[in-house]
């Protein structure tokens, strides 16, 4: 008897719940295991945090996240996950993609499935060209690289540069974008040094010694966010490159916020260009960081991947609210094209032509403040578009 009552009540509650809340299913594909697990956690937490912070604004709609592990950058597992989210779970919106190869492999399915697909990380320039349903809320590698190339001449007065990069597509994109902007502004890249693959952290000494011997004004380094950057800073100091007057510069990947404090005083003086760092001085960022620390602990620090996840969810909520819970893909795309939003990274917009993000790039210098490493703003470029598509470079031309 009691069992029956419980079942009846439960089904009643369920029925009422269904009637009240218009449910929108969002399929999230991220590498929850393996080497990308830490990056996926940042994005996942960013998404969850947005839902938590804006619970009132989302009512009466209900956003359900269906999370699937993309496992590795192989493409196949992510593709199967996307296929099943579309055909089994019948999701209304897709989100995620940490590794570019997975976004590239999923593109034909996204196109066939005709659902809005919000990219929260994958940064290879041409990805948004591969499916008309991709909208990117992270970055293109060209955002930071191209902006840094210009700023190195204008703000840092450098004439010569050596580029050291991890030898995989993001690294090659970084090299191409930095070189193009730097040389267009009047600088000269005097050496390009591939520094091993992304899989393991190499011994950087021979690469850095080669850079030092060329005596450039700046040494531009791109390595994947994570353990690589600590090794970069250590080697830079060990070889006395700072004393030799060579500035270490790079995109924000080398000063990833949740790794920065562990680098210690060796990181002081590092100059980076990026669309986000945790020290950005704006209201949205202060609220975001405070909520993050409250939710995930004072020791936990959000980084640009977390903001990618947060802004992706902001976009999804915007679509759900505008369309009143009934997700029509074409209308959703129209809603997002040209959409402006105040993100923790400052004002952002979706370029209606490319469906890629337009955002500010911040030039910062790492300084020690009260025993903590802080990224001090020393320059800013407003409303930066993905230069890869503007300049029609390589695969970005199609």
């Amino acid at each position, binding site marked *: 008897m009691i069992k029956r009552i419980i079942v009846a009540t439960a089904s009643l509650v369920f029925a009422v719940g269904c009637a009240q809340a218009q449910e929108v299913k969002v399929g999230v594909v991220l590498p*929850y*295991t393996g080497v990308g*697990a830490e990056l996926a956690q940042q994005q996942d937490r960013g998404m969850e945090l947005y839902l938590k912070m804006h619970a009132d604004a989302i009512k009466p709609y209900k956003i359900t996240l269906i*999370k*699937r*592990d993309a*496992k*590795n*950058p*192989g*493409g*196949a597992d992510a*593709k*199967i996950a996307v*296929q*099943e989210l*579309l*055909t*089994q779970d019948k999701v209304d919106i897709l989100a995620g993609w940490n590794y*570019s*190869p997975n976004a*590239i*492999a999923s*593109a*034909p*399915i996204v*196109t*066939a*499935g005709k659902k809005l697909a919000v990219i929260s990380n994958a940064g*290879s320039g041409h990805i948004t060209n*591969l499916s008309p349903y991709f909208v990117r809320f992270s970055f293109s590698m060209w955002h930071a690289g191209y902006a840094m190339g210009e700023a190195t001449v204008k703000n840092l007065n450098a004439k010569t540069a050596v580029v050291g990069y991890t*030898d*995989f*597509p993001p690294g*090659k994109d970084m090299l191409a974008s930095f070189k193009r902007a730097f040389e267009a502004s009047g600088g000269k890249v005097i050496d390009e040094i591939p520094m091993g*693959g*992304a899989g393991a952290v190499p011994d950087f000494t021979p690469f850095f010694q080669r850079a030092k011997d060329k005596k450039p004004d700046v040494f531009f380094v791109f390595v994947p966010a994570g353990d690589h950057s600590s090794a970069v800073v250590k080697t830079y100091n060990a070889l006395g490159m700072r004393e030799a007057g060579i500035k270490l510069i790079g995109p924000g990947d080398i000063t990833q916020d949740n790794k920065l404090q562990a680098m210690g005083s060796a990181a002081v003086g590092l100059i980076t260009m990026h669309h986000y760092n945790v020290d950005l001085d704006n209201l949205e960022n202060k609220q975001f960081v405070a909520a993050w620390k409250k939710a995930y602990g004072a020791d936990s620090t959000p980084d640009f991947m977390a903001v990618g996840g947060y802004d992706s969810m902001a976009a999804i909520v915007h679509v759900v609210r505008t369309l009143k819970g009934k997700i029509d893909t074409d209308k959703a795309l129209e809603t997002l094209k040209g959409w402006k939003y105040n993100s923790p990274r400052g004002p952002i917009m979706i370029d209606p032509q490319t469906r890629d993000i337009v955002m500010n790039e911040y030039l910062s210098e790492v300084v020690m403040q009260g025993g903590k490493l802080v990224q001090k703003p020393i320059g800013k470029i407003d409303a930066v578009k993905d230069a890869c598509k503007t300049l029609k470079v390589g695969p970005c031309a199609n």
Partner: protein
Amino acid sequence: MIVAAIKPTEHLAALAFAGRHRPRVWEPAPWIFAIAFYFAFPNYLGFGTELLVTILFALSLDLVLGYAGIITLGHAAFFGAGAYTVGMLAYHGIWNEPISSLMLAAIVAALVGLGSGLVLLRTQGLTLLMLTLCTMALLEEAANLGHEYTGGFDGLASLPIPPLLGLFEFNPLYPRTQYLYVLIVLFIAFLFVRTLIYSPFGQSLAGIRENTLRMHAVGSPVRARLITCYTISAAIAGIAGGLWAQANAYVNLTTLSLDRAAMVLIALILGGYGRIYGGFVGAVAYMALAHFLAKLYPTGWQLGLGLLLVVIALFARNGILGIGEALLRRIRAKHMPQ
């Protein structure tokens, strides 16, 4: 009387040996199951296709590892060679007809197998293991360096694969064609491998695995047999890779990675190597578990898979099929008249 009692048993053993290649009653079961899967789970065909490709890949590995006893950790070299053959020909607009590209994939992979086999198979044991690994790593790095042609780490995407036989479209969202296509190719390859292992050639491979010296002593051309076997296996792995590239309309560096080589090795050992159905059982067990656990617990599914592997490694050295065989032997022993 005594003579009469012995004769039938002798006769039985001889009969069993002579008829060992005949199909068993249960042998159609996996194929019926595969066809039933097609109708029962139309939304799982993406996963099903990946599973069938892995089975084919495991079958090719079984030929070298299980039958010829060649220890290799670099079998993805041939998978990748086949995948890149299909991928690069299609991407650069040279050739993309599915069936003939698959044959080209087999030929290229076989050439890679022959070339590397001529050098590698002079060695044995750990040296051989290391060298197979190195071959694969060299190919992977070559594909990375030649990124203008291979697409590097990002791979070659949206390959233009035309309809099969000009009739059946490869739909990315509902991969029905892909599933049946891979299933048919798998069946043909299976028939070939099954015939091969029960042939005198296959028996000589088992002989080499069990006692190389004795095979030399009886005048068997050991090295030529091993190289032939390695080449055939490479061709089948190349077909598996080609199928993978066609089914996904995609190819990237992970087709040549240690992850793929290790995964298929684990699946084969899990199922039971040296048994033609070992790859079937192992791939299904490993991939189904990984797939559904990952669906339930996207962050912690590897724990469940790891536990299974530990249990199998501890208690079932011959894999899942080994457990079945041991049980069968016990039942038979019980029912056998003393």
